[in-house]
């Protein structure tokens, strides 16, 4: 066990609710000589045998599906709920950035709520006085600060809470997806404030569904599944594990859904032609595969069943990541090309250098005629995998979406001058 860990979670188990009833049940079973080996016999465990350490200045990302136990873990760390078994040790001042609206009152104005939230978040009077200008400026609420917050939009309320929270001086921050508040600019401001805090040596525990925030902010990550730590390590690896896990599960669901999606009777559009299926091939050999390497050439084969011949049309093939973010849209405008679709067959979309980073990607397809009427629309239902290699991992650490081939050059000022 290392000395400089500021958070130590050891063999923590958590079962919600009063422990009285499970305890009595257990006692009764023992008295009757019955032993129940099923760990869930006395109520479901929210966390099982969770152990990890975080050193000072580290940022740890926690990923997992809804209900996996992420928020429970934060609650235990915040000290509001005791673990059923195990121990938690925390050194330093901890501030949970969860439920930022807690303590706010709808009938009070923004300014009054800032004072109140300050008290809730542990400021003394002098600190509140000192920080109020910063908080007010950060919130960008201006004249709204004098209005009661029941008139605020939900985004504005969240902004108010966040503005107070980022001004708290703490050694350890627990963050629960609060970065998704407000508009683009505010979110950017929040992210850069988080970067500042991390650079200043604050230890951060960050719970999120958004893989990019985790990759961006965290040095380490753990993946929680059904209350257990399923994997721990580099954020990129953990996220890959997380998504691969969800792909296996989702694959079954998606396959069912995919069959439904590929059942053209259920789809939108005029139906002049319909996509029957997508297949993925290696262009060189024509071999059908579903896994590629970063930088490979890929053929996406769109199998079409034509009812009425179409002369002018526009096609879009969208590639998106597992969380639904569109990475690229590939368009074929029939007004520019002289392609016509008269009879059933297949259309090949050949991508020469598919520089996507490792992960699972999903395909969406939309076809419109020249009048803009949708002929066929296949929502995300089909996926392909990209696998990585060491060289690309070293150059990108698998953060982001794409690999850009790169050369680094170092020039001193002198050589810069002589070059000129």
């Amino acid at each position, binding site marked *: 066990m290392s000395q400089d860990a500021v958070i130590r979670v050891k063999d923590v188990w958590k079962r*919600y*609710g*009063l*422990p009285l009833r499970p305890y009595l049940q257990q006692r009764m079973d023992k008295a009757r000589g019955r032993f129940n080996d099923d760990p869930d016999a006395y109520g479901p465990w929210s966390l099982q045998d969770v152990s990890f350490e975080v050193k000072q200045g580290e940022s740890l990302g926690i990923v997992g599906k809804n209900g996996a136990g992420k928020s429970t873990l934060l*609650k235990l760390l*915040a*000290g*509001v*709920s*005791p673990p059923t078994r195990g121990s938690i040790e925390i*050194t*330093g*001042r901890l501030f*949970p950035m*969860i*439920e930022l*609206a*807690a*303590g706010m*009152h709808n*009938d*009070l104005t923004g300014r*009054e709520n800032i*004072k*109140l939230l300050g*008290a*809730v*978040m*542990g*400021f*003394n*009077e002098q600190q509140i006085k000192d920080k109020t200008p910063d908080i007010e400026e950060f919130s960008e609420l201006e004249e709204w600060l004098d209005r*009661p917050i029941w008139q605020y939009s939900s985004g504005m309320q969240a902004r108010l809470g966040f503005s107070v929270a980022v001004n708290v*001086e*703490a*050694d350890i921050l627990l963050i629960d997806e609060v970065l998704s508040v407000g508009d683009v600019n505010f979110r950017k401001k929040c992210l850069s404030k988080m970067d500042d805090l991390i*650079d*200043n*040596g*604050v230890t951060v525990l960050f719970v999120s569904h958004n893989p990019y925030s985790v990759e961006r902010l965290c040095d380490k990550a753990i993946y929680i599944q059904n209350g257990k730590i399923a994997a721990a390590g580099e954020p990129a690896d953990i996220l890959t594990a997380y998504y691969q896990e969800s792909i296996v599960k989702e694959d079954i669901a998606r396959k069912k859904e995919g069959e439904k999606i590929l059942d053209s009777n259920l789809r939108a559009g005029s139906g002049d032609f319909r996509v029957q299926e997508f297949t993925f091939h290696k262009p060189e050999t024509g071999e059908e595969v579903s896994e590629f390497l970063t930088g490979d050439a890929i053929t996406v084969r769109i199998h079409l069943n034509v009812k009425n011949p179409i002369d002018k049309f526009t096609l879009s093939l969208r590639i998106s990541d597992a969380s639904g973010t569109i990475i690229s849209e590939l368009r074929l405008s029939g007004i520019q090309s002289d392609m016509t679709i008269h009879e059933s067959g297949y259309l090949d979309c050949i991508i020469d250098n598919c520089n996507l980073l490792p992960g699972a990607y999903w395909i969406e397809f939309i076809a419109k005629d020249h009048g803009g009427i949708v002929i066929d629309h296949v929502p995300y239902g089909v996926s392909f995998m990209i696998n990585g290699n060491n060289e690309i991992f070293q150059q990108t650490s698998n953060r982001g979406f794409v690999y850009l081939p790169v050369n680094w050059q170092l020039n001193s000022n002198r050589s810069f001058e002589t070059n000129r």
Partner: protein
Amino acid sequence: MMKDAIDLMSSWINITPTITRKEKWQGYWHLLMSLVLRDIQVRYRRTVLGPLWTIIPAVMTMVIFSFLRGVVDIDSEGVPYIVFAFSTIVPWTFFQKAITNVPNSVIGNGGLLRKMSVPRSLFPLVGILTALFDFFMSFIVLILILFLNNVPITIAWLWLPILLFLLCLLSWIVGIGITSVSVYRRDILRGLSYITQLWFFATPVVYSLNAVQGKKRILYSLNPTVGIIDGFRQVLVFGQSPDVALLLVGFVVMMLALCFVLPLYHYMSLYFADVI
């Protein structure tokens, strides 16, 4: 080179040293006061009568029983009924508000309980202090009424802080008792208004202590509010010391209740965040 970098870093790292005990308690005190201020402030928002609402409950009870007295004969021991009844309605209203406020304050601040590890005993205090504020407002009205009816201020008034302390202690015990059960199952909260009504008539608020005689008097005396509320009347209206024997009996009952309620509250409060 490396050393420079580290020095540069340390000037960047700005971590507050772990706060002292004193600062921690100052923080809790500040939070307590802020929550009380919030609860007092918000009651006047979006109302027409505003701060008048602090004294309206006591005044309305007064009005209702003045009407009732026109029909039913209630002995007021030779003093004007308004003086006789208002001197006890004001402390009673405080008690009633306090025991209602305490569970509401804990449950209403569930968001805070799920988020911060502040002492769980802070929230009952918020409820009691908010009710205490109303008490002082109504007490000003009470003094005005006493003055208008030529009731003198006597040395017996020195008993008032003691009586008020006992009443606060009692409402705290009852409040955390109700809270301990209510966070888990809400039945008592649903029925609380009936319980307080029953308790109201089991206390000499609108009638005289002397109206209860005989065997039932012994059972009646076990109710801690009897001694305290009657004490307020003896001191304020008649300028006499309260019945110390009654107060003592009530105090013993309170302490017995405390022995049961305090560990219960302590145990339940550990799991507030789980069950609220």
